[in-house]
């Protein structure tokens, strides 16, 4: 299955992987999720995608909250939880 570049960008945007501000409020549809599944090499059938769509849509709300948080450039990701 091939995925057109335009379609792929639309899907990534809808799922929040790419994020122009104008697309921030859109929810991913089944077609978007199907395209992303294909891109990551683990396609899911439409039945599974229908189950996942509301779950992912709900999680996008949390993701957006994280993405809007200002983080100082000096903050690096945790690489070890505690010094041994």
């Amino acid at each position, binding site marked *: 299955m091939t995925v057109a570049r335009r379609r792929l960008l639309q899907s990534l945007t809808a*799922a*929040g*992987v790419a994020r122009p501000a104008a697309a921030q409020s859109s929810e991913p549809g089944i077609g978007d*999720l199907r395209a*992303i599944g294909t891109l*990551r090499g*683990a396609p*899911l059938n439409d039945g*599974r995608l229908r*189950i*996942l769509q*509301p*779950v*992912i849509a*709900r*999680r996008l709300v*949390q*993701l957006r*909250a*994280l*993405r809007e*948080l200002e*983080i100082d450039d000096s*903050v*690096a*990701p*945790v690489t070890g*939880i*505690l010094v*041994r």
Partner: protein
Amino acid sequence: MARPDIVFQPVTRLANLIRTRKLSPVEVVRACLDQIDAHNPRVNAFLTVTAEQALQQARTAEKEIMGGRYRGVLHGIPYAPKDMLATRGIRTTNGSKVTGDWIPDFESTVTARLSQAGAILIGKLNLLEFAMGSGQTGLAGPARNPWDLAYSPSGSSSGSGAAIAAGMVPLTIGTDSGGSVRGPAKSCGVVGLKPTFGRVSRFGVTSLSWTLDHVGLLARTVADTASLLRVIAGADPRDNAAAARPVPDYARSLTNHVKGLRIGVPTRHFFNHVDGETDAALRRALTLLKDMGAVTVPVEVRHAGITSAASGIILGSEAAAFHEQRLSRNAALFDPLVRERLEAGTFYSATDYIRALRIRTMLMEEMHRVFGECDVMMLPAGNPPPRLEGEIVNSDAPTQPPAPPRPDVFNLANMTGIPAIVLPCGFTAGPPVLPLGIQFCARPFDEVTLFRIGHAYQSATDWHTRTPAMG
């Protein structure tokens, strides 16, 4: 001592009787097996009972002790781990049909250390599938809350909490990646400890989320919890996250002195959505501790509100990575909720995951600052548990009507690695009559202070001595 009197005794008392040869480990094991026979058909806390092996080990322990070879406080004491800890030659299911017939050929570090200390494995405990399931459709159905069988013991270490509350075993092991030990401890009215990240080896424990997973402990009293941690903590070359720090003699912290201890009380976030009875119980507990000489100071964790979302991305991404191959081969065998969560976890991006790890850095720095202002931080331990019937516990999917909002009180300790303990601090007026809990967190590797305040609180209260009717 009559068998019904044995099963609700704390380990410290049983150990004293065993050490002085007034009580045989065989009697203790038989009492626990009788209690399991009587109540497990309804409570469903145990997935596997290793009765013959346990009795054989008890007879061996009895001989050793009678011969003057007493190994320590856990010698001859029965215990049971959540069925995510590998036990050589004993089925280890993870509560899942996917691994329902797995018999490991190796032993987890925790169970190996307990065996070395003379503790007696009496069986393996029910759980939410792979520590993230619904509790409804896993391998054996849900464990039930001994205080009211219509209610959940909470999860994911559901059997670990229920078994202690039901008097089936005095010590259990669980795992805690986002409250999975502390939630069941609260809901079942027992003590639950999530130690510092790295304090206890995770070798042989099935992963949920590599950077959030902790082995946790449940017992009837803080003193029992301290005895258990002393045995299972410490460095382990087979777990590269296990800390090399020395393990303190925690029993020395079990004074009743909290004079001058600074209890941080968060000024916002953590008390959102806490129900009225829990809130009142927490206030009573604080008043008592202040009367004993502790002082309270207001503290603020500025990014507490983002903790749950960041934790969800980390846990979802890591769990999806851990189960990737199992999911591709055996998707239909998973609990539908586990499958849903794992599949949804594959849709997070790498940048989202890294952002969540950066937020984790910020939270760790915030907690470092908070613990400059206080010695322990008090938090709620959640609301009373949900009813089981017809309800999917912890579902990610939207529900009708929407599930009531819950306080987010557990993820902070997993995200920052700090130790946290939950104690019973009251009961709902009922019906249903269900336990209420209080939680304390401390600096990394400062379990001593948690034991100190917890033991002092239990010395001044009797919530931990109450037992369910289970009629």
